[in-house]
């Protein structure tokens, strides 16, 4: 029997990680992500895992990366300021093909901003945060249930693709309490291990098998450009191109499997209006489309549960149906740029920015804005 719990999002996230087989957590205190660390500190010793609080966010993700190479599923959790500090090691994890999960519970920024208030300002940092040619995988929960489910999924994708996966949450989702159904069985495949004697750990396959330190493979792991064996090539253009093209192909050839969305409202036919949103904002949108439907509008909401790689085709398909698309977000306009790119002129795209204080626009405000957009 699946069991139901009344959990805040942060606890659901920690429990999702444990259920996914996470056995190592390193973190640094930060609001509003602390409950994840605190819960992991209590739970990991009970399941034979290890929790350690490190001296800063670089050390936290560094320890996670070390534990991952030593064979454990590993995770850290933070918020915007810590997420900024982690970018160097997120790029490193991507380039060295180290599976790990990073939870970013977004709060108002930039800088210290408003630590206890929700925002969605890290959309682009999650995509482009590390320097150089990084390809991101980012999931976006909008309920405690999805904090559980998408944390599990983050481990699944991370282990399958050998790449870091970010769970992009926010303060509202982190601290709200809802029923969370925990399934009876969660199984994430074991990492593919190399055959004895193998010397290529970074190619040539899209996702090469990953050795564990101490198993006799003598693997050299480096954040410098490297060949299939892991040997550093700091000047050769061909070696770099081959590596970076494979890493991008690895992420983008899996894009369709990563894409995850929910379409509510009118499922088919022409639309007067559609919304594209994610995270806590989607909760207000779902009520707004009911209000708009009751006013006789044909409306739909596309809620993205995976933001990066961006689901271009999904958004484009919606744009074929809609006169106008509204993109409400708790930032000065980040997701809207991506929606506009994917829509490519098929529909009008209008952003709605709300920043500060962690206040979502109410469903009524969204509906009112929408009615103005369609001229009613």
């Amino acid at each position, binding site marked *: 029997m699946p069991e139901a719990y009344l959990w805040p999002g942060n606890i659901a996230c920690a429990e999702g990680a444990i259920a996914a087989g996470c056995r190592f957590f390193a973190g640094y205190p930060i609001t509003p992500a602390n409950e994840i660390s605190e819960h992991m500190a209590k739970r990991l010793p009970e399941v034979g895992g290890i929790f350690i609080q490190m001296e800063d966010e*670089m050390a936290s993700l560094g320890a996670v990366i070390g534990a991952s190479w030593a064979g454990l599923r590993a995770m850290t959790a933070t918020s915007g300021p810590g997420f900024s500090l982690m970018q160097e090691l997120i790029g*490193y994890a991507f380039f060295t093909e180290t599976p790990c999960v990073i939870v970013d519970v977004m709060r108002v920024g930039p800088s210290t901003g408003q630590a206890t208030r929700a925002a969605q300002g890290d959309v682009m940092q999650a995509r482009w945060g590390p320097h150089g040619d990084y390809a991101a995988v980012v999931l976006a929960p909008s309920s405690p249930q999805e904090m559980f489910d998408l944390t599990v999924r983050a481990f699944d994708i991370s282990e399958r693709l050998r790449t870091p996966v970010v769970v992009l949450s926010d303060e509202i989702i982190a601290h709200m309490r809802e029923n969370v159904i925990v399934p009876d069985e969660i199984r994430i495949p074991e990492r593919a291990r190399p055959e004895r004697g193998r010397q290529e750990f970074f190619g040539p396959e899209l996702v090469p098998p990953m050795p564990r330190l101490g198993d006799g493979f003598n693997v050299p792991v480096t954040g410098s450009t490297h060949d299939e064996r892991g040997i550093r090539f700091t000047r050769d253009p061909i070696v770099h191109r081959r590596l970076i093209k494979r890493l991008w192909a690895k992420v983008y050839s899996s894009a369709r499997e990563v894409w995850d969305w929910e379409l509510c409202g009118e499922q088919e036919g022409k639309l007067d209006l559609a919304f594209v949103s994610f995270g806590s904002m989607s909760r207000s949108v779902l009520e707004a489309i009911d209000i708009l439907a009751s006013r006789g509008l044909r409306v739909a909401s596309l809620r993205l549960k995976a933001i990066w790689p961006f689901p271009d085709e999904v958004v484009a398909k919606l744009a074929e149906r809609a006169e106008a698309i509204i993109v409400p977000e708790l930032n000065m306009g980040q997701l809207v740029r991506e929606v506009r790119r994917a829509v490519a002129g098929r529909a009008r795209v209008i952003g709605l920015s709300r920043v500060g204080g962690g206040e979502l626009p109410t469903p009524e405000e969204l509906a009112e804005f929408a009615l103005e957009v369609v001229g009613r």
Partner: protein
Amino acid sequence: MSGGGFSIRRYLRPGLKLPFCPGCGCYTIINCFLKAVWELGHEDLSEFAFCSGIGCAAWIPSPYFNADSIHTPHGRAIPVATGVKLARPELKVVVFGGDGDIAGIGCGHLIHAARRNTDITVIMVNNMVYGMTGGQVAPTTPLGAKTTTTPLGCFERPLDVANVVAAAGANYSARWTTAHRRQLTDAFRRALTGRGLRFVEVVSPCPTNFGRRMGMDAKALLRWFVEASVPIEEARNMGAEELRGRIVVGTFADRDEPGLLDRLREAYGRARPP
């Protein structure tokens, strides 16, 4: 021991050529370190995992040692090593890094690893300068030294790293120079055994990017190391003025307090399954 006598070749990855400049202290450090490994009875490096950051010294294990090694971003070798050790305690985890890597950008990690008494070995190659990037001033550059970013002479005091690590709680902390090969090998042996954090600072010549601007070649740098070195026992009776410009060598701490893993296991023994 089978397979003949000591040769560093048995521990090096085949087909690669060491990248260090002529006169670089890293050659001596590799020799002394692998000698210590040999003397401890390891015929290969299969029981080890190496972590290093960015800088010339970070290239000592990566990828030249025929072993598992993680070459991390600048300064982050100690946290990555911490994760490896906690996840696979049976491995001997060894960090190599320069003074910039370990005591500059990574200084916070070093002090906390000493405080935790993390069960790893940290070898800091102190060439008193940022060598790989061309010879900029480092946290270990002596007062008055000319570097590319202190053309008028260094006006900051150097950090006494071995002393700081000892004060922060590491089980073992020592400083030697590459002119003290036997003592250095013995210090590495000690640093590869036991529990807690074991730290060795090696004062090492960088003729290319430090000595050159100081008017010293590799031989002159080694001569200076010999002349400037003061055993810690003598240094304890000397004043600050007398010690200016000297290199205090010897053992700064050697104790057997519980390491991070001991403390963690003790605490986790109290965990009850749900």
